[in-house]
């Protein structure tokens, strides 16, 4: 298949994805949605990795994606466990109602 996607486009896409993730984290109150936005940010990073891997002709990018994935998986598991626990204790998933560490 001829033609190749220019690097800057995928980077732009990755940046947009990342920013959407950031906004998601900042804006939403629901812990799960925040969690999803973090996944989005991670995937944005993966995209950037693959894009660079592609343009620099090296596999390292993709391999890093693997590591990112495993870390993301682990993180999701632990995160969700915490959220479940949190829900059990506080009956709420909304972040701003959980300010245990209030100074």
């Amino acid at each position: 298949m001829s033609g190749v996607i220019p690097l800057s486009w995928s980077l732009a896409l990755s940046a947009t994805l990342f920013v959407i993730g950031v906004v998601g984290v900042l804006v939403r109150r629901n812990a799960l949605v925040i969690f999803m936005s973090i996944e989005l940010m991670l995937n944005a990073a993966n995209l950037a990795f693959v894009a660079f891997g592609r343009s620099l002709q090296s596999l390292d990018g993709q391999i890093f994606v693997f590591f990112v994935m495993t870390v993301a998986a682990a993180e999701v598991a632990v995160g969700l466990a915490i959220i479940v626990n949190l829900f059990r204790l506080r009956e709420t998933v909304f972040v701003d109602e959980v300010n245990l560490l209030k100074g």
Partner: protein
Amino acid sequence: MTLPLISLIPALPLAAVALHLLLGDRLGKRGTALLACGAVGAAFLLALRAVFALAARPEADRTLVEIVTTWMRAGDFSVDISFLLDPLSAVMILVVTGVGFLIHVYSIGYMAHDASFRRFFLYLNLFMFAMLTLVLADNFLLMFVGWEGVGLCSYLLIGFWYERPSAAQAGKKAFVVNRIGDFGFLLGMLTLFAFGGTLNFTRLFAVAPHVFAAGGTVITIATLLLFLGATGKSAQIPLYVWLPDAMEGPTPVSALIHAATMVTAGVYMVARCHVLFRLAPVSLEVVAVVGAATALFAATIGLAQNDIKRVLAYSTVSQLGYMFMACGVGAFSAGIFHLMTHSFFKALLFLGAGSVIHALSNEQDLRRMGALSSRLPWTHGTMLVATLAITGLPPLAGFFSKDEILSSAFASGHFGVWLVGVAGAVITAFYMFRLYILCFRGSSRLTHEAEQHLHESRPSMIAPLVVLAVLSAVGGWVGMPFQAGGHAFERWLRPVFEGGPAFAPARELSHGTEWALVAVSVTAGVIGILTALRLYLQSPQTATSLASRYASLRTLLVNKYWIDELLDAAVVRPFGAFSGWLWRFWDVVIVDGTVNAVGYALEGASAVLRLFQTGFVGTYALFLALGVAAMLLHFLRHG
């Protein structure tokens, strides 16, 4: 010399003090008394032995120096513990040990029934040690040790009956005033060392004329500072306030310290440094004027005192004034001569007063005495001799020494000083006879119970009185005037005094003027006596009428010109207030305040920072994002 000649003299009383401390109560009253008097007696004998040894030496090198050890050496400053015996200090040690011994014997009787008998004698011996060190010191520093030691003992002895707050207060006052005097002495010493390079008398006096410009400001300041020390110690005008209050102590103390020995230390010091004083005629003038002023001033106050010991105290101050007057006019030997004779009859007066008080069971007010001559024959007899001596009647010691002072004052052209001296003599005669009459003559105004157990003192108290009476009578003959080369005493002291720079010899007085001066001083004394007799013996009512007419003057004198109150208001109170302000305001508020302020400031700052920790995860994420944005911005700009 087998035994060390000089250093043993002060060592004996010190040893006695040590023994008192170590043996403590096991000695018992008799033991303590024996030990104390024995030590002083032995010291007197040793002094005699040393003086004879000194007299044996040819007139030229009549000085004995004995170095014990090096006391202090730092850099080029070095001071030894060493003793100097020369005719001047010979006289002094004889007077100190002699009169001291008599007073020790007397006080055995006087303090017989006092609870802390041992402590009294311990202090007395300590005093003897300090006085002897002062007198025998070979350098200023050792003298200063004696100087302050004597001050300490006077503090302890004045405050001996410490239960009485007034005694303790008087002790403190004495010590502080002495300390002010020592302040001057100390600074004088420093200036001398700074310029002279040594504190040793002989070396300093040798080098003084070359180092100090005669009449220069430095030597004047130094000598004036020394004189300030002397006034502190010998209770002259500015710093005499402590002596009258010192009467709170037991009478033998007053006799020993405030009549015979300690107060004379000032005169001795001025005499010892005659070389320096001669280099600074200005300070000599000051000494003379202060001496004269004190003599007159104290005498006037003495007039109106009703407490027997207070009268004697003021008379001591005025007599000391005379001695300083003598030194001021350059007649150092006359001063020392008067010092010797004065210590005899003043000690006698005090001891006599002591036995009177003892007899009247501690009654000191003249207004409640009278007609004791018959009932206390011995005391009366000796007191009479002493009173006559002090007024300066011819055969007795007082006449010779006072007359010589007046004549040398006249001779050296200080007519004002001479006139004041004569006036002083009149007043002295007047108040001494006032005391004598009120105490021994006239109607008996004793209180009832005083009447009961009125009794003559014990022989152990009377004996010293008699000895002193003899000395007062005979003491003067040593200084018989009109002898060719000056009387014996002056010849004895000449090697000491003419060592200094050539001093304009007093104008040789023709015999005529001398006899005239003698006549004048005798008549002055007689006038004083007659007026006293007339006022207090024949017509007591005229005394009261006079008193009423000059009421204001009299109250002035009675209250001692309100000097004490003045000083208290001018010095003590403001000092207290100032330091109070200094502490409460300055220390606590300003200095401590700033320290605490720093603490609170920090706390305030941290409170501001705390606002950022809201506890919401969201805010932290926001800051995070802002951080990233900032970083990106940075990369953008510097990319």
